[in-house]
């Protein structure tokens, strides 16, 4: 360029570009991709409603889910008094559904929070160690992955006994292994990048590289996995409580409500249908949101979607 004193505006004129250069924001791009398609938005709406119900449930539920037994009105069909009818003890199905949402979401969040923390830690350790430690962690992970999730959870919950805490432990054990495997795989591939070599050349230690170089670059797949994981945890918990292993009655949980209602399928099908539909909607919400996040965060899909 001959005249180095030309300002940016003049340069723009010179190359015939009259659009001001906008600052590129990765965050804004991700958000616009996510909201650009219908299904992730549907998922987000479902999850938002679900969260509102869990927070404001006690004010929204028309009856108490446990002690309000309208025995004269047991197994009532939907009416203006009981919008979704009542169960065999005369408890209001809608109120039990609303309170059941709290248990589901609580278990989903705690299980995924704990298992992600443990799994990411073990995955990073495995990726950064060679020899015995790496093989011990990864082979135990392989072993745990060979169990069907529901059987492992059923086994642990069955032996520990019911109750909220034991269900959380049982589901967490099954959720850790996939997190370890994915984190370790991601970390190993991130480690090959030049910026990690550069950080090492500048004198960064192992721990520093792990936390400030590798972990942030594994963030996107871990976030997607957590979103979908909450959905599959809720599904697994419903399966466990359906089989009668799980939160002890009379606390309302969706899986057990489906099973309790199954006895009255011919006369009161809504007793089984309603809680199952609730499980399905919530899991659908988390899955679609996870799908949307994955597409929006995946750098290979940049410009495609």
């Amino acid at each position, binding site marked *: 360029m001959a005249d180095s004193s030309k300002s940016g505006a003049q340069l723009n004129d010179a190359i015939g570009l009259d659009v001001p250069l906008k600052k590129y924001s990765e965050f804004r791009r991700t958000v616009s991709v996510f909201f650009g398609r219908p299904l992730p938005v549907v998922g987000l709406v479902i999850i938002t409603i679900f969260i509102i119900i869990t927070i404001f449930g006690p004010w929204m539920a028309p009856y108490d889910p446990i002690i309000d037994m309208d025995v004269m009105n047991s197994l009532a069909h939907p009416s203006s008094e009981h919008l979704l009818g009542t169960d065999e003890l005369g408890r209001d199905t809608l109120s039990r559904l609303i309170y059941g949402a709290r248990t589901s979401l609580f278990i989903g969040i705690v299980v995924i929070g704990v298992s992600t923390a443990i799994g990411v830690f073990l995955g990073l350790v495995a990726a950064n160690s060679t020899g015995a430690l790496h093989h011990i962690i990864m082979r135990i992970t392989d072993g745990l992955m060979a*169990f*069907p999730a529901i059987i492992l959870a059923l086994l642990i919950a069955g032996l520990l006994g019911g109750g909220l805490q034991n269900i959380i432990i049982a589901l967490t054990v099954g959720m850790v292994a996939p997190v370890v495997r994915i984190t370790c795989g991601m970390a190993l591939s991130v480690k090959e990048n030049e910026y990690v070599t550069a950080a090492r050349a500048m004198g960064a230690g192992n721990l520093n590289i792990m936390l400030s170089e590798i972990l942030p670059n594994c963030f996107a797949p871990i976030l997607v996995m957590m979103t979908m994981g909450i959905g599959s945890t809720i599904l697994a918990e419903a399966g466990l409580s359906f089989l009668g292993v799980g939160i002890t009655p009379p606390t309302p949980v969706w899986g057990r409500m489906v099973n309790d209602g199954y006895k009255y399928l011919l006369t009161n099908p809504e007793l089984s249908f309603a809680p199952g539909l609730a499980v399905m909607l919530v899991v*659908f919400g988390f899955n679609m949101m996870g799908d949307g996040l994955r597409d929006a965060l995946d750098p290979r899909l940049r410009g495609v979607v």
Partner: protein
Amino acid sequence: MTGYMIRRVFMGLIVIIIVTILVFLLIRLLPGDPLLMYLTQQQFRDTLYDPAQLAQLQARFGLDKPLPMQYISWIADMFRGDFGESISLQEPVSKLILDRMPVTLHLSIIGAIFATVFGIGFGIICALRRATWLDTVLTFMANIGITIPSFWAAILLIYLFGLKLGWVPIGGYTSPFDDLWLNTRQIVLPVFCLSLFGLAANTRLTRSCMLEVIAQDYVRTAWAKGLKERVIVLRHIIKNGLIPIVANMAFLVAGLFGGSVIIETLFNIRGVGRLLTTAILGQDYMIVQTSTLLFVVLITFSNIAVDISYGWLDPRIRYD
């Protein structure tokens, strides 16, 4: 290739050893004493159990020895074909499982074929007719399929086809050699519910893999050469697009065995899944450890088979 196969089989054997240790430790170390439960069930709950009788039972089941010895004798017994005796049913576990395994395998194999054939088929249709109403409908159904709780799908289908329409019986299992027609009607719903998740997952996976392959340069070249659509789809797209689906087969098997626990209980089918559920609820741990191990070992074997065929389909994998 031979070296790769040997490595995979070796890794699989290590996983099986780890799995035996996991199953063994889980059952021994978690609280809940099956013998105590057995004794208190035998005598009435208000009478106290007899410590001498407990010690005698512990000796009979080998539970008085230290853990490593128990583990070794458990493994040694299994190699001799002795899988222990059920505490509550008073029958050899091997007999209980052998009676029920054909039923579970029957349902799982038909379920696997169903999920694979229709899942891949729907996925191919979606990818080839991308962004048409057919694609939208099938993809939406697949999204529902991976979401719907299998027990709830089962209950909906029982209500509709069993109770309202009366087309199929709502449970039970008759051997196909006794009454093939009754058997077919009995297993339609359980097999469908078992394979629903795998079917939907396969559809989604096939669709996305096929779309990836369709965008490749060699597919464009094939079009440019003037090949027929049928040849391009079969030779160039499907052959390469299916490699990840093969990798997913092991998850399919795990899903089918996991699902059998719920579906067999719900449809009242005497299979290993229901045996396992009742054994876990009744803390009959001889049955629990053997049937869990059986499932996990079968899944590990299918994993090895998948890995080997994967390496054969995609030579790049072998050098990982």
